[in-house]
């Protein structure tokens, strides 16, 4: 890891412990610190056949709108999430997830490849034979996200 974080402790009149991490941008190194401190919710509440379950974020391949529902798809099942997509986008800190259209957020870890087939959307082949679709309008945002999350990289 290439950074030397400054650690500052302050007493405060609060219940429990509050940890605030400040950095210029959310890089993989910052994300490592967050996960090691164990701050980010590693799970999300979802519903399967009406029953509430907790699913691990790492297991989620994509979030997508399905009619009036928002669903989280894993390799095994599809779960209902009782939140709008924009709220999920705000809640998830991890750079693993990126919004690719008005109706989908995908987990980069599960991407196999992007392909443009001439239509209005860009096809994203994910693991487990899942296909997501990126809007042409989001292409530059996805590029920017991948560039920032990789710390520069190929883009």
């Amino acid at each position, binding site marked *: 890891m290439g950074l030397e974080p400054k650690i500052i402790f302050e007493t405060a009149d609060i219940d429990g412990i509050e940890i605030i991490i400040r950095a210029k941008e959310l890089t993989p190194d910052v994300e490592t610190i967050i996960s090691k401190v164990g701050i980010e919710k590693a799970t999300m509440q979802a519903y399967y056949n009406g029953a509430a379950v907790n699913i691990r974020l790492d297991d989620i391949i994509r979030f997508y709108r399905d009619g009036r529902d928002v669903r989280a798809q894993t390799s095994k099942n599809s779960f209902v999430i009782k939140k709008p997509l924009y709220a999920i986008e705000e809640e998830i800190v991890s750079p693993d997830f990126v919004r690719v*259209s008005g109706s989908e957020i995908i987990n*980069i870890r599960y991407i196999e490849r992007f392909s443009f087939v001439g239509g209005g959307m860009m096809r994203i082949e994910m693991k487990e034979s899942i296909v997501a679709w990126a809007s042409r309008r989001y292409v530059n945002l996805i590029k920017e996200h991948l560039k920032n999350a990789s710390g520069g990289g190929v883009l």
Partner: protein
Amino acid sequence: MNKRMLKKAIIGAIVGTVLGNAVTGFAMYLKAGVFKLCMPEFVEMVDGFIPAVIIQTILSALFGAICFVSTAVYDIEDWSLAQAASTHFSIIFVSYTVIGFILKWITPNFKEIITIFIFFAIVYFLIWLIMFLIYRNDAKELTKAAKEYNEHKKKGDNE
């Protein structure tokens, strides 16, 4: 009309104004060896050079605005690139033909109209081809970037 469309309309109007007048003047120079801002037939039709320039400027601005604002069809997600390009082409060709007739840039001559149609079609095919190649390249770059991100993450997880 939202901010983005308004911005496009303004830029289009400016570009249209400049090109409409400049191209007419240049075309007249090539045809008659003299730089004239408006077609003589149009000047005669509206009874004077100043009214001709004003009307040509307004219609050129309108044409420019139409060209730029109609690029919004490329943002329609349900449409293929071919659908968007052919719709954009149709809007521009019809607008150009109507304004061209009014300003006497073109005459109601079948051969001339077909020539212009073919010219526009070739230009639009090239635009479609370039955009297709750009998006295809974008897909390759995104695949590469996603692979690099995942390799970077794997290294971080193993630390």
